[in-house]
C-alpha cells in the first residue's frame, strides 16, 4: 500500500475552511484515496473517497490533481465538533467481498477553536 504523509497537526477557528493535504507519491493506478475522521474514544469514521479530480459530499470535498500524488481534504466552515484526527489512506477499492485491510498513517490532529 502507498505510504502517505500528512501534517501532524493543524489549528483553525470556527467558521473557517480547513484544507488538509496528504502526499502519496507512490500511489498505484488501482488505488483510491479515502479519508477517515476519528474522535477521542471512538473508532474512525469514513468521510470521503475519490480517485481523481473532485468529489463532494455533505461533509467535505476531496481534491485530487491529475498526477494523483497528493490530495486535499476540504472541510467548509468548521465548528468545534470538527476537532478530531483525520487520516488519509490509499489502497485498492474492493468491489465485492469483505474489503481490504487498511494501513493508517499518522493522521492530522485538527483543533478548532472559538
Amino acid at each position, binding site marked *: 500500500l502507498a505510504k502517505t504523509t500528512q501534517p501532524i497537526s493543524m489549528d483553525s477557528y470556527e467558521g473557517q475552511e480547513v484544507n488538509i493535504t496528504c502526499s502519496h507519491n507512490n500511489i498505484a493506478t488501482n488505488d*483510491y484515496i*479515502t479519508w*477517515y475522521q476519528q474522535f477521542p*474514544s*471512538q*473508532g*474512525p*469514521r*469514513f468521510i470521503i*473517497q475519490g480517485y481523481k479530480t473532485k468529489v463532494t459530499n455533505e461533509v467535505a470535498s476531496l481534491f485530487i490533481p491529475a498526477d494523483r500524488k497528493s490530495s486535499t481534504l476540504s472541510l467548509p466552515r468548521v465548528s468545534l465538533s470538527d476537532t478530531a484526527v483525520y*487520516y488519509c489512506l490509499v489502497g485498492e*477499492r*474492493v*468491489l*465485492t*467481498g*469483505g*474489503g*481490504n*485491510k*487498511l*494501513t*493508517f*498513517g*499518522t*493522521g492530522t490532529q485538527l483543533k478548532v477553536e472559538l
Partner: protein
Amino acid sequence: SAVISQKPSRDICQRGTSLTIQCQVDSQVTMMFWYRQQPGQSLTLIATANQGSEATYESGFVIDKFPISRPNLTFSTLTVSNMSPEDSSIYLCSVALGGQITEAFFGQGTRLTVV
C-alpha cells in the same frame, strides 16, 4: 452500512491474565479486521479474520498472543493473552463493505489497561 458492537468497552486487567473481546456485526461479512491503537498513536492492523479459516496475522503479531475466533459471518473474538502493561491499548474491530465506495466501519473500541 454496518453497525458494530464491541464488548467490553473497557477493562482493567492484571498482568499475566487474558481478556477476550467480542465483536458483533449487524450484517454478514466475509472478513473482519482487528486493529490496535496505542495511546496517542495511529491504528495498526493485528489480523484479518475470515469465517471458516485461520486468521491472517500481520508482522509483529502472533496467534499465541492474539488468538482469534470467527465462528460465523457476524461475530468474532480477539483474545489478548498473558497480558503485560505494554498491551494497554484500544482494540478495534472493523468490517468493510465493497461496492462503488469501499467504506470501513469500526466498533467503538475496547480500552484495555493492564496493571
